[in-house]
């Protein structure tokens, strides 16, 4: 229902942040993620960061695998 994509925070200026989205630089509003800091990955929806991702994209697939393996073990 809601398109949201991850992007990396490059710099922060007040309520705004400059993020990198696969080579595009966007200015977004970070009012909804006050804890976000430079280097964080955030989910962007309608020009706003709505969630801070605590692990980097590279770890995501790994996390998925861990989840999957845990599952296979029946936990």
């Amino acid at each position, binding site marked *: *229902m*809601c*398109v*949201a994509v991850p992007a990396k925070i490059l710099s922060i200026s007040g309520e705004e942040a400059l993020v990198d989205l696969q080579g595009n630089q966007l200015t*977004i*509003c970070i*009012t*909804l*993620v*006050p804890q976000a800091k430079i280097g964080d990955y955030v*989910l962007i*929806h*309608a*020009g*706003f960061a*709505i*969630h801070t*991702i*605590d*692990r980097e994209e590279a770890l*995501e*697939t790994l*996390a*998925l*695998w861990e*989840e*999957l393996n845990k*599952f*296979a073990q029946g936990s």
Partner: protein
Amino acid sequence: MPKEVKTVPDLIKRIKEKVRPVRFMEVCGTHTMAIAKYGLREILPPEIELLSGPGCPVCVTSQGDIDLALELAARPGVTLFTFGDMLRVPGASGSLESVRAQGAKVHILYSPLDCLQYAINHPQEEIVFLGVGFETTAPTVAVAIEQALAHKVNNFSVLSFHKRVVPALQALVSGGNTAIDGFLLPGHVSSILGREPYEFLAREYNKACVITGFTAEDILLGLLMLLSQVENKSYRVEIQYKRGVNPEGNPQALAYLAKYFTPVETTWRGLGPIPESGLGLNEAYKDFDAFRRFSLQLGRKEIPTACSCGEILKGLKRPEDCLLFANQCTPLEPVGPCMVSSEGSCAASYHYRR
């Protein structure tokens, strides 16, 4: 993305080991699109039936609400801003696209903040933001109102058609609907809401629930987790989409929702009026409430059509079961809301059907 290919067959294998006849509803329209885009139905065992729920905020905007927006857009001096999704949604007397062609000022924006700058630059115009979307989108509109207050923007208001997902789910299950065994719960709404608001589905209605992400692996893993809950009869709300959802949601966004909005009864296309399922602006922000600012009357008549969107949204029918599907109702000439949005159940079925 080769890494996806590596994991998907494995997931499918495990799903096949656990499978039994089940009906799961994906609540979120973006899930509907992703399932179709990846062609997941083709590789899932036939015992798993996937139903598309009410998770497209465009689909569920009532015709009466659209007509209200059309009426407002046509008023002299009013400039209406909204998201691209809304432009072609039909009301009784046309769409925003058609009133724009007749001279109404209708603009598409990407972020609700974009219309504030326009409002500042065009003090002689009345800027109205037509707010659609669920709890993911509404906090962004709350921030826009906050900034309008801070910058003393007096020619800006919000026509809030925002909706809440949980009351709609409540309406689906409390109607004695036993057709659904479990829910793939929306990822990005849950980024805001967290897990707690869905607990009643598991606790009171024995529905399996998994908050799920949007890649093929995410969705397959979500289905596997749902199957496991059904198998063990241990119904609870699990989070598969951990990278996008904290169990407690986004407290800051929730605080914005509570401060600026208040739950109100609203009419959902296909589902009818549902108590506390809409988000109206709080009394404290009435100056920004387009309903009050323009003395708009709610409760317009809904014109009955032969379309089955209501039953499709409830999971009681599939798009192909509708008499109008792909005949009188196509993406070019949509009748029902589920065909209008490119992620609506009917448009997704139409676009990706084989």
